[in-house]
């Protein structure tokens, strides 16, 4: 399988990220690599359907009012499955939250909450809400990597989304007092069923999963 023409900038369990040129612009190519351990026909259908789903979620996320990278190209050739999208040259919310004065960090947390609320209102869950998947570029807060996302209105899945985000706030930004609550405030302004989703998040935490601390 040919390498993409560009620089490898990341590798996860499922995909490689390449920095490539696309029509004279810088772009990110996310390639879902074939997995030899599973049947070729199963492998192909999984990679194709996930690539399509991610392209769709990026678009729907934007339509729901959350900036996401523009999808330039979707290539579903059986041995490649590449999603080429806008390269967002921004600063990760993870770094910003640690760098900004508390008041700025709170304001950013509020905006993160609003964006998550808009996604959930639009029937989208992100699936991997960490502060490294949010980038600030020229005042706009972009959400990236919808690879674990889904279209659903289910409170349970929204609760897991919040739980993962809480974990991120707790482990990476533990020193930021009140930021997670500020995030929830933003979430509440953007989503009608916020109270129910937050309640579900607490239930999920109490079940002992997605948590660093043993509760009870």
């Amino acid at each position: 399988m040919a390498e993409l023409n560009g620089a490898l900038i990341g590798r996860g369990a499922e995909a490689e990220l390449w920095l490539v040129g696309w029509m004279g612009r810088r772009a990110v190519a996310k390639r879902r690599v074939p997995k030899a351990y599973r049947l070729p026909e199963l492998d192909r259908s999984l990679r194709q359907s996930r690539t399509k789903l991610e392209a769709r979620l990026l678009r729907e996320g934007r339509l729901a009012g959350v900036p996401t990278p523009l999808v330039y190209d979707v290539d579903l050739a059986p041995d490649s499955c590449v999603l080429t999208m806008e390269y967002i040259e921004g600063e990760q919310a993870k770094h910003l939250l640690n760098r900004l004065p508390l008041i700025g960090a709170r304001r950013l947390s509020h905006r993160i909450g609003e964006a998550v609320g808009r996604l959930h209102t639009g029937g989208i869950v992100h699936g991997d809400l960490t502060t490294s998947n949010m980038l600030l570029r020229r005042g706009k807060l972009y959400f990236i990597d919808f690879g674990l996302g889904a279209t659903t209105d289910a409170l349970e899945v929204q609760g897991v989304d919040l739980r993962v985000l809480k974990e991120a706030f707790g482990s990476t930004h533990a020193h930021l007092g009140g930021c997670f609550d500020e995030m929830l405030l933003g979430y509440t302004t953007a989503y009608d069923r916020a109270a129910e989703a937050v309640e579900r998040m607490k239930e999920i935490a109490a079940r002992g999963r997605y948590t660093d601390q043993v509760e009870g």
Partner: protein
Amino acid sequence: MNPTAMLCLGIESTAHTVGAGVVDGRCNVLSNEMETYVPPEGGIHPREAANHHAERVVPVIRAAVEKAGARFSELELVAFSQGPGLGPCLRTGATAARSLAVSLGIPIIGVNHCIAHLEIGRGTTAARDPVLLYVSGGNTQVIAYMASRYRIFGETLDIGVGNLLDKFGRGMGLAFPAGPKIEKSAATNTDPYLPLPYSVKGMDISFSGILTAAEVKRREGAPASALCYSMQETVFAMLVEVTERAMAHAEKDEVLLGGGVAANSRLRQMLGRMAADRGAKMFVPASRLCVDNGAMIAWLGLLMHRSGVRMPLSKTKICQRFRTDEVEVAWRN
């Protein structure tokens, strides 16, 4: 007292199997006896399994001590499965352990069954810091060590994979345990793969939809061997995928397979291929140490005892929903 010479007897009784094993402080398995309750029909009935265990636990313990070439008076510690598992079954093992500890005047220690699967792998293979894919009847978890606990990186949201295979097999008239029969039938298959629901949710998996879908295909006349083949290919791909995710996330380059379903050679092949492709290594303990067994309980008991854990009798209550990440892991740095 020389800690490596210390003998521990472990008692296992979480589900179908009642087992006892003797292990020394170097993780030499001196004996590992077990007997498995096979329901006359259908799935496991906890009380009937517990009755079986109650009848068999004493002979199994005796056999374990005898095979180890030891005397009861030489045992210095007794360990038992405290959970997770079926209440009546767990109680049988715990009662046996308590009586033994009291009559021999030695300490008792209750251990987490899932962690025992991982520790026996570390103790008897070259794995040092693996991600464990633990696949059995009741449990399906991906576990790895992080920040002084064994954390669950992924798990089934409904039933265990062994349970899934048993239920699927029962629909086709295959007796418990159905896994080996499914494996055999799948190996003879020449028909194309039948797509079945593939349900990976982040790091978690769900099996309930696949059972219904396979049942529908069976009623529509799909050949048994094609169903077995497609079931294995789909379910094992799900398991290997979440394991790979956990390895990437936790940054580990070893994978350990444990639980009864670890006996399946197709699963081993797929997991091994995934590991090789990412430059990692796969380890599989001996098959009698993969299934539910007393030796692994004994070894974890020893590790905990040596790290200073002490349990008064009043703290030896069983815990049916004992979670892997509840245990403070004091024996690893």
